[in-house]
């Protein structure tokens, strides 16, 4: 396998275009299907009424917000270790999408919290750590924007991304470590989900749609970065 063949921006550029197109179409189809299942097919929740339907956007967005940070830190670490140009570009291409999903997770969470908890915002461990995640994304982008030399921007951002990755397990386990208002996970890989099958289908479809969207958005952005720098 020629792992490093596509590590060169020149060879990666056309491939990224193809993958971005495929993922963009997949994202649109999956999102339509997910929204259809989520808003029209899934039954009304016994306790939360119709307000619960926001989880179809909230939960996948929160997953992606954390996952994208880990992916970003992975590319950053790869860039520092192997000194490949593309890794840094990938890290900076992922950051705005991650920040977007973090913001969506916080915003939809606030809209859901108002009817359910009676407050838009509570200083609960998970909400606070998700807010810090947003600040980390913004700090990463601000640092890269402040440095003119792209190579230095990539490497400085990489160090920051790796330092900030400490926050991810804190968000993920915050519900278990502290007594929080935010509920625990309803879906896990190891046990049966505690929700109706159609609800789960809707959520999985939306999660896949967000995956596809993230890949497409990041690749479109990385293509722009490649064009800009070369």
């Amino acid at each position, binding site marked *: 396998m020629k792992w490093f063949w596509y590590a060169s921006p020149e060879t990666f550029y056309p491939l990224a275009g193809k993958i971005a197109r495929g993922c963009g179409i997949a994202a649109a189809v999956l999102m339509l299907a997910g929204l259809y299942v989520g808003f029209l097919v899934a039954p009304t929740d016994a306790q939360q009424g119709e307000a619960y339907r926001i989880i179809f956007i909230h939960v996948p967005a929160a997953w992606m917000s954390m996952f994208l940070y880990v992916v970003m830190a992975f590319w950053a670490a790869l860039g520092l270790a192997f000194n490949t140009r593309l890794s840094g570009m990938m890290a900076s291409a992922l950051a705005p999408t991650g920040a977007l999903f973090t913001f969506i997770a916080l915003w939809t969470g606030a809209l859901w919290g108002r009817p359910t908890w009676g407050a838009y915002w509570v200083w609960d461990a998970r909400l606070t750590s998700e807010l810090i995640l947003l*600040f980390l994304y913004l700090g990463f982008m601000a*640092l890269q924007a402040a*440095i003119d030399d792209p190579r*230095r921007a990539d490497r*400085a951002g990489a*160090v920051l991304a790796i330092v900030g990755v400490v926050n991810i397990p804190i968000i993920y386990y915050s519900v278990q470590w502290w007594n929080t208002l935010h509920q625990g996970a309803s879906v896990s890989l190891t046990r049966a989900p505690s929700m109706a099958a159609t609800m789960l289908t809707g959520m999985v479809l939306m999660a896949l749609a967000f995956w596809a969207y993230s890949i497409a958005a990041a690749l479109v952005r990385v293509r722009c970065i490649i064009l800009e720098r070369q």
Partner: protein
Amino acid sequence: MLAAARCIVYRDLLLAMRRRSDVATALLFFVIVASLFPLGVGAEPNLLRSIAPGVIWVAALLSSMLSLGRLFASDHADGTLEQILLGAAPLGVVVAAKALAHWLVSGMPLVLIAPVLALQYDLPGSLYGVLALSLLLGTPVLSLIGAIGAALTLGLRGGGVLLSLLVLPLYVPVLIMGAGSVELAAAGQGGQGQLLLLAAMLVVAAAFAPWAIAAALRISSE
């Protein structure tokens, strides 16, 4: 190796003593910020007692951040930093020594003066020890994490504001544990758990931060 570390600490302390007003400014800032809150929120003793740990900790955070910009800037400007980077002494040890010197100059005075501020806030005398101990364990972590940010933003335009944007989110866990320990102790539950977590953070930061600082300095001064 230890000789190099001792030399750096001695040199930085000497430089700080030569420019005593810089040290005093950060300390004065700490006292003034902490004194503003009773004027802003009203001098109701019960309210002051309940917000005291948080206010003192936030003031300590801001004050320690204020002096971070100077950590590497003057060395960068006069070329000392390049000599350090080229020198034989391991960079990790040198930056750890610089962070230690920064703490001795900016963190240590906060620990010593915090009980006086606690007096202003009418905090019960039994809590002075917990407050001072939490600051003693927490402020070195602030210096270590802050040094990463200072190294990353070295020589950038708008470095000061950017530095706070990078560093403040990373300070949050220290703030939560530090202020939490005093609040728990005030509630009669003892703050040992939070203090132990602070100590754990200090150990982790002391072990890993010098690497990150060294890497960031190498990137910044290429």
